[in-house]
């Protein structure tokens, strides 16, 4: 039995047993359901082996929504625990696990796949391409990410969750102070998912540089594509740092090296520095595509072109460069001295300038527009003041002397939620609502959508504004409890109420999807929002090959021009289309990565070695495989086009 003891959760509770049972029931239900409806073949052919960017995108979306639920449950548990002084709902160990996994799940397994969903689904459509540059690599990216996410989530029920914070500072995350396998999960699961992200970065940079439609010069790309391009450049520069960092951390934990230990020449501060050299650009990887989505949405519903296109692009380039020059602001209090702090204080504040330019450009895009307020626009309008509030508190935090008082407090927690929720999460929901008809051929219910937006915003304000106040009153972050005498309880209760309202809003979003699947009209045409860029120029649902004829582009708003100025998008005639073949290799290889990661976490070396050999075998097989793809014949395309045209409009 000794062998199996290691898989036990070191600190079990009713909640964890409950989770075990519900996960088991859910898995059995899924397996029985698929078998009952005889969908295994369909699942394998159409999804598990697919290389279609649209399907991969939708799989990213499903994972992101599941993880949003998981991270959200973590959040509500934390807020409930802190809503009353000396609450005993969670003990210290559970609270530490919950805030650690909340951070990792929300950043890496919710926000990252959400933006990758948009990259996947939209970029080829926006640039008039038929797929990404490396479709099979794209499938591998997704499956690696998926396996990383699953491995990480397993920690909750097998072996114990990481509990050293999402930043996992050493020496706390070292073997001496984190004795469970939780931090091994952190190192290895994020490593596997991170490799997927790095491949995504390379893939989309190539796609955007090499596969744009004729006439689409760089400065004629839609703004979302620009933002995605810059974000992916940051990915390619920043993620290798994470890879190295996690590899070093893994070696410290598993093989007794001393990179981050405090004796034998190791240095704990090195972890903090490298973590944030990756970590700060990471937040811009999240926010820039969100800015891109807002640009598309605001311009569409102001019925105007985006104001200051060039300065929008320039500001993102400047932000991307500065994102690598500010990492030390995450630890002004580490004692670098006033000179270093002054430099990082100034670079950090400087980022406010290009960000401010973007805010003003959105405001001027509304100016002289003809503004309508469907749900995506409502999110974008709510985003502007709420994000501005988050941005200016960021400038406050950038003042390093004052940061000695904000650091590690709820003020900081309020600030980064104040930028990430209105910045990223609103953009994700707005974008999802905006592109839902493109993906599924029907619209989400507007009334429910607006209720969601308002509830989310009211909940957000109630949940996070009080944290600014308790932070200034001395409430440190990551405290699992506090005493009555601190006086934090009233505001923390308000926070909990706000969090509960946000939970209701997310539940309403889920209900909206259910409701709209059942009742929404399927007769919406290809362009339900009267939009402006190429993704709306093709049919809904989008055929496998995206565009029967590759469009020709003359401005940033090619589709708008074709509607209003008689610009001819599709010249020439239909020819046979070359498409990539599906492949099981990415899925199989990622399963092997999962086995490898799992056995690494528990130091089961034979399995790890076998899995590694399997991974190398997959790579070798791929190198010798001759697969030149396939052609879709002209007749087949014409048939599809006729059918799509008949069904819609």
């Amino acid at each position, binding site marked *: 039995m000794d062998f199996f003891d290691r898989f036990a959760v070191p600190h079990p509770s009713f909640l964890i047993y409950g989770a075990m049972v519900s996960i088991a029931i859910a898995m059995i239900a899924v397996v029985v359901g698929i078998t009952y409806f005889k969908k295994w073949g369909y699942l394998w052919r159409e999804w598990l082996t697919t290389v279609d960017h649209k399907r991969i995108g939708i799989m990213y979306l499903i994972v992101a929504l599941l993880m949003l639920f998981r991270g959200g449950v973590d959040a509500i548990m934390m807020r409930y625990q802190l809503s009353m002084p000396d609450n005993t709902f969670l003990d210290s160990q559970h609270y530490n696990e919950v805030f650690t996994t909340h951070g990792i799940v929300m950043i890496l397994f919710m926000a990252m796949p959400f933006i990758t969903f948009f990259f996947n689904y939209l970029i080829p459509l926006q640039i008039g391409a038929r797929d990404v540059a490396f479709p099979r690599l794209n499938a591998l990216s997704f499956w690696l990410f998926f396996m990383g996410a699953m491995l990480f989530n397993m920690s909750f029920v097998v072996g114990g969750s990481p509990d050293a914070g999402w930043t996992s500072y050493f020496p706390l995350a070292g073997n001496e102070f984190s004795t469970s396998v939780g931090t091994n999960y952190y190192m290895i699961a994020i490593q596997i998912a991170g490799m997927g992200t790095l491949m995504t970065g390379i893939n989309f940079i190539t796609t955007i540089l090499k596969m744009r439609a004729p006439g689409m010069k760089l400065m004629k790309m839609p703004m979302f594509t620009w933002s995605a391009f810059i974000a992916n450049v940051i990915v390619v520069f920043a993620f290798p740092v994470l890879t190295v960092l996690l590899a070093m951390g893994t070696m410290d934990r598993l093989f007794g090296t001393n990179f981050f230990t405090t004796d034998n020449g190791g240095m704990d501060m090195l972890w903090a520095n490298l973590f944030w050299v990756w970590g700060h650009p990471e937040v811009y990887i999240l926010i820039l595509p969100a800015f891109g989505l807002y640009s598309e949405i605001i311009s569409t519903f102001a019925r105007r072109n985006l104001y200051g296109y060039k300065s929008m692009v320039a500001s993102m380039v400047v932000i991307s460069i500065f994102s690598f020059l500010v990492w030390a602001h995450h630890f002004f209090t580490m004692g670098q001295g*006033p000179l270093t702090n002054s430099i990082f204080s100034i670079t950090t504040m400087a980022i406010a300038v290009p960000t401010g330019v973007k805010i003003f450009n959105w405001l001027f895009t509304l100016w002289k527009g003809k503004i309508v307020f469907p749900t995506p626009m409502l999110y974008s309008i709510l985003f502007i003041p709420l994000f501005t509030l988050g941005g200016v508190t960021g400038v406050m935090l950038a*003042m390093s002397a*004052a940061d000695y008082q904000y650091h590690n407090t709820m003020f900081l927690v309020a600030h980064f939620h104040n930028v990430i929720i209105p910045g990223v999460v609103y953009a994700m929901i707005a974008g999802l609502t905006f592109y839902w008809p493109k993906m599924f051929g029907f619209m989400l219910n507007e009334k429910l959508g607006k209720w969601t937006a308002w509830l989310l915003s009211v909940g957000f304000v109630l949940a996070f504004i009080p944290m600014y106040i308790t932070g200034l009153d*001395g409430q440190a972050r990551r405290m699992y409890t506090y005493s009555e005498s601190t006086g934090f309880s009233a505001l923390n209760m308000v926070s909990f109420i706000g969090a509960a309202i946000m939970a209701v809003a997310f539940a309403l979003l889920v209900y909206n999807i259910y409701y709209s699947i059942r009742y929404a009209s399927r007769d919406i045409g290809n362009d339900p929002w009267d939009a402006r860029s190429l993704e709306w120029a093709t049919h809904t649902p989008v055929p496998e090959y995206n565009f029967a004829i590759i469009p020709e582009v003359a401005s940033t708003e090619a589709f708008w021009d074709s509607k209003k100025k008689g610009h001819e998008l599709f010249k020439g005639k239909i020819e046979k289309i070359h498409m990539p073949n599906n492949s099981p290799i990415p899925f199989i290889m990622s399963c092997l990565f999962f086995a490898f990661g799992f056995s690494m976490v528990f130091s089961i070396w034979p399995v790890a070695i076998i899995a590694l050999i399997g991974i190398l075998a997959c790579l070798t097989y791929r190198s010798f495989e001759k697969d030149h793809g396939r052609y879709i014949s002209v007749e087949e395309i014409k048939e599809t086009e006729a059918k799509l045209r008949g069904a819609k409009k």
Partner: protein
Amino acid sequence: MRIKMKLMLLTIVGTIATVLAGCEPLLVLDPKGPQAKTQADDIILSIWLMSGIVIVVLAILLFVLIKYRASNQSEDYEPPHIEGSHLVEAICIGIPIIIVIFLSVVSVKSNYEVETTPAGYEDQEPLIIYASSSNWKWHFSYPEQDIETVNYVYVPANRAIEFKLYSYGPITSFWIPQLGGQKYAMSDMVTTLHLAADAEGEFMGRNANFSGAGFAKNTFEVTSMSQADFDEWVDEVHDTADPLTEEKFDDLLDPGHLGRSTYTGTHLEFSPAPEHDHGSSDSEIEEPEHEDHTDHESGEETNHDNH
């Protein structure tokens, strides 16, 4: 819908106003020392400035939303195509740059202020206290007075204090909000936090950096008192407290929570602080304290004579 939005904006502005008005003084905005005062002043200044920015953005947003909403315009209005204007963009870049430059000057100035002996105390010899954390306690060593306390610290008011910070274990952060902001305590170097209390009283102190299971209750009490009371306390400790032995200190380091305790002697004698240069400008190279211990008795005498 617009009414709802206005209500929400009012909530936001109202909440900020509550902070500004300071219904009850928040710890950080109720400074009891020069460093905390510098920081609180910066915070208040930036809150006002930033509120101004938020209000301007809100005003522009509300203006364009109301003026240019579709229901306010004729059916056949076609919004124009506007590329952008160099003048407008220069303003949008210029004004933020001016604000950032202004705040940078304030920030740099304050940086140097909080990283040195507090203003008004330059002519004094600062009191040096070694504050080291262990899971989940704080140990305060007074090398000059040759005493050590656990989980509480007495300091003389109106005297510059240099806290020398380090940790037996994870990174912690030493924070007394009313005296000044925090700084990390780490196990492989010593950092210095310059503080002073210009009032007598009791203050909350805590570790602000997550350090494991006992983190939430990793707090200590700070009492600021007159120099005479402080000296009296030191004498009393020497009369009544037990000496701190190496075995006793090892027991104290065991993970857990402890109440207050007091000893004569300091652990610096057998477990010196990690004072070696780590390439950081903050870890000043000093002679290890324990080499001076022979002087302690006489140093203390001098101290007593001074007041």
